């Protein structure tokens, strides 16, 4: 987020954003539970122009043994971007950014997963970003929750995620790529609606204390919207019409 000069009109006189959305309107979100044959659970999400695939394996044995925990299961998360997922072809080696996001998503999922039921084992979550737009980490976290549920892993709640932010001095929901590049602040939030807990929170960009408070509120409200779509995806697979 090096350059934040407004090189484009991020919000017009009618309060419409560069992609035509209103301030509190998320991008198009499509979530599908399942889809992969070999994974124990999987999901696919399109969140704006993000396209992300998640596969889950486990609970399964840990190698080498000394990495396992005799008291609880462990969660392992890998967030990974394909070389063709971004503007300029990405070097295949894992970047420091990918390692940090893997850790942040892992810690966001931990409180949701009942790992204590599976001591000595591991649950592996593999996140593959096929196409990246602004907000991959929120989309990835949202999809990962669904894939864990699809794998039948016992969960206390699901984590829904979306970013709040600030653009043209206005607090908005769901920062897209242009708004992330040219905007004033980006605050990804992961939230468990039933347990009322924020499990992912980051911020880049300057906010007054008031704006900070408002961003958190807007983000939590957005997560509740995303949560409904997560439930619908699981419903569609397990109980509903699979036509779509």
């Amino acid at each position, binding site marked *: 987020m090096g350059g934040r000069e407004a090189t484009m009109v991020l919000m017009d006189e009618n309060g419409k954003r560069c992609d035509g959305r209103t301030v509190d309107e998320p991008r198009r979100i499509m979530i599908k539970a399942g889809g*992969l*044959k*070999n*994974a124990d659970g*999987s999901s696919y999400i399109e969140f704006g*122009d993000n*396209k992300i*695939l*998640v*596969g889950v*394996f486990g609970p*399964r044995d840990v190698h080498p043994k000394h990495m396992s925990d005799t008291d609880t299961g462990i969660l392992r998360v*890998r967030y*990974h971007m*394909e*070389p*063709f*997922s971004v*503007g*300029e*072809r990405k070097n*295949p080696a894992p970047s420091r950014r990918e390692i940090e996001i893997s850790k942040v998503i892992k810690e966001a999922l931990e409180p949701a997963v009942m790992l204590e039921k599976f001591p000595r084992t591991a649950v*592996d979550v*593999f996140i*593959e970003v*096929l*196409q990246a737009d602004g907000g991959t980490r929120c989309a990835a976290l949202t999809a990962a929750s669904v894939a864990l549920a699809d794998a039948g892993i016992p969960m206390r709640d699901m984590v829904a995620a979306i970013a709040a932010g600030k653009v043209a001095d206005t607090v908005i929901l769901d920062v897209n790529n242009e708004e992330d590049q040219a905007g004033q602040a980006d605050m990804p939030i992961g939230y468990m609606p039933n347990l009322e807990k924020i499990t992912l929170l980051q911020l880049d960009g300057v906010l007054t204390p008031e704006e900070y408070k408002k961003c958190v509120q807007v983000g939590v409200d957005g997560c509740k919207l995303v949560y409904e779509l997560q439930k619908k995806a699981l419903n569609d697979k397990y109980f509903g019409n699979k036509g779509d």
Partner: protein
Amino acid sequence: MASHTVIDELKRNQILELLEQGKRVDGRSLDEPREVSIETNAIPKANGSARVRLGDTEVVCGVKIQPDRPFPDTGDKGLFICTAELLPLSHPTVETGPPGPEVIELARVVDRGIRESHMIDVSQLVIEKDKSVIGVFADNVVVDYDGNLFDACSYAATAALLSSKSPKWNWVDDAPTLVEGEEVDVPITTIPVSVTMAKIGKHIIVDPNGDEWASMDARITITSDSNGNICALQKGGDDGFTQDEIVQCGEISVRVGAKIREKLKEAQQGGQ
């Protein structure tokens, strides 16, 4: 991918027994590939892309086209590079980390099949001789594994390349400069098709699925071009072929390849 448990042994026996009767576990004839389904433009932001299923093996390929520096001794040619990676969600045994010899071989064989066919005319990918050329990168990622990645990746890369449009650059002020809003075709000269065959016992089968792959004695991947010529070949596996079998595999590959080439053309037309 290659483990040797009692179950594997039983599976191999079952596969062999059926083959003695001229049959395969999934009902196909010996020289019949699995159903191929091709979705092009699966990654709209890439310059070209395809999502290919070969039976239950699934591969996504994205093509990126961007300016690059030429190799020192070939300043009059652009670059073509094709890679392949097994994503860990594609199978429980796949590990993360640097690629092992099997994945390196996979990537190099897929790359070579396309490169040696001269599918992409790299002499047309020059922005400024010796200074700047166009690089075409076709990156395959395997998202579901059920055997025969060689062909699945090759079809995905070929379909993605056929679907590609290239941005245009001019040489301005000693630097490649994007011409906004213009797109050109990628220079395509032929459509290579790889056909992989496995030898199990004395039987040669086309497009082995996951169980057949784990049971095979040796394999051979042969790529043919639109003229019905053979342009690349790789033998693998811990056993050998007779000279007659090698000749027979060449014939099968050209015949089966022709049918799959039609599907690639359909996908190209469908995608346009």
